[in-house]
């Protein structure tokens, strides 16, 4: 059975799956979709109280959490929608123009 990680833009059709079906889940993680971003959130770590409100609101699971701490954005998947900025009660996130992250 072929896995998503073994399929790329050079794979011949004989090795692709019917209808492009994928025999595993969570494969979107492997795809860089952060390039779609036109605005970028900036995480202000010193203002963050780690209330975690932003985490479930993020439509792309682009806010990693480790040991009870909210880490900086996963820019490979953040689309810059700005929902996290709106829900943050502590002004710990701001939006800047442009898709590039520092």
């Amino acid at each position, binding site marked *: 059975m072929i896995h998503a990680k073994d399929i790329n833009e050079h794979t011949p059709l004989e090795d692709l799956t019917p*209808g*492009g079906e994928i025999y595993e889940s969570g494969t979107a993680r492997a795809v860089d979709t952060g390039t779609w971003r036109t605005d970028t959130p900036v995480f202000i770590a010193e203002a963050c109280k780690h209330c975690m409100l932003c985490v479930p609101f993020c439509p792309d699971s682009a806010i990693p959490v480790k040991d009870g701490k909210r880490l900086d954005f996963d820019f490979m998947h953040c689309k810059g929608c700005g929902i996290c900025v709106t829900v943050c009660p502590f002004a710990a996130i701001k939006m800047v123009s442009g898709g590039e992250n520092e």
Partner: protein
Amino acid sequence: MSKCLSGNEAVAFAMKQINPDVMGAFPITPSTEIPEYFAKYVANGEVNTEYVTVESEHSSMSVCVAAEAAGARSVCATSSCGLALMYEILYVAASDRLPITLACVNRALSGPININNDHSDSMGARDTGWIQIYAENNQEAYDNFLMAMPVGENPSVRLPVMTCMDGFITSHAVENIELLETDAVRSFVGEYSPENYLLKKENPLSVGPYDISAYYMEHKVMEAQAMKNAKARILEVAAEFEKISGRHYGLFEEYRMEDAELAMVLIGSSAGTAKATVDKLREDGVKAGLIKIRVFRPFPGEELAQALSKTKAVAVMDKSEGFSANGGPLFAETRSALYDLKERPYLIDIVYGLGGRDFKTEDAEKVFERLSNIVATSETGPVYSHMGQREREAKE
């Protein structure tokens, strides 16, 4: 077992014998009786099918797509505008390679609104990636439905199948037909056992992903290859079916074609009418024959060209307009198929029977008369024309 059934009841009965996992049910004339009969089987506990009533045909086909992807064998029935409303999802079913079976009871498309038979609904869906198999009568409607799943579900194919019959003419007329025993049907059709499906816990499946341009073309070529593969599979299944039923099916039926010089190519119930005309003409010494297309998708182009190669003049009968201004869809396929022959017969297209307009033995006779004039004069006349419509008498 012999029984008097309408075409609709015959198909519903075939569904009952198969006992599918899911039916996406929405009524539309003239196919309404199929989900209606089937609802009775569900209510009586004669089948274990999950009967899902929905708010539109777009949804009934969506139910089938979801269920089939989940690993459940799914069926559906519709007609006319119902099929048109499914259009988007028909492509999804085929491109996701989900072998759903749909009974299409052919009816004219609106507008003007009309509930009677022609083939404009399924012909409009001819490029969706569905296999299309057409029936001449109730027996064939029953048989074709039984053969659909072994064709579509085969790993070399994995495409949805549309079995078509003529609205009212076939769907509502009652005929005495031969039914197989349910045990025989179940062992012939077998279980639906796809290698991968959504509910398989060992490897969760993702179906219908966003396909960027780096992949889309490859997937379409694979789908096209599957449609080519379907031809051999259809014949294989027909041969197996003949063993249990004694009834023979091919990609098309050749009727008195051995030495035929004049031939008619058509689809569906009109074949019965035209066969009577062929018999009459044969008695008069006219070498007339007929080809009834059973499988329109995949189109049996090479086989049809071979079957027509010895004829002198052929009339293709289109029961849908197509509005190409260059002939109907069956004509386009047939003419294209004949192009590769070294010596081609004269070929004309006649669009007939739209919205339930009658097609009688006299009409078929007129067509053969035209063919014999073409052979006598070597003049084709109008290649693409209509018959059966009222027109002012031509002035002298």
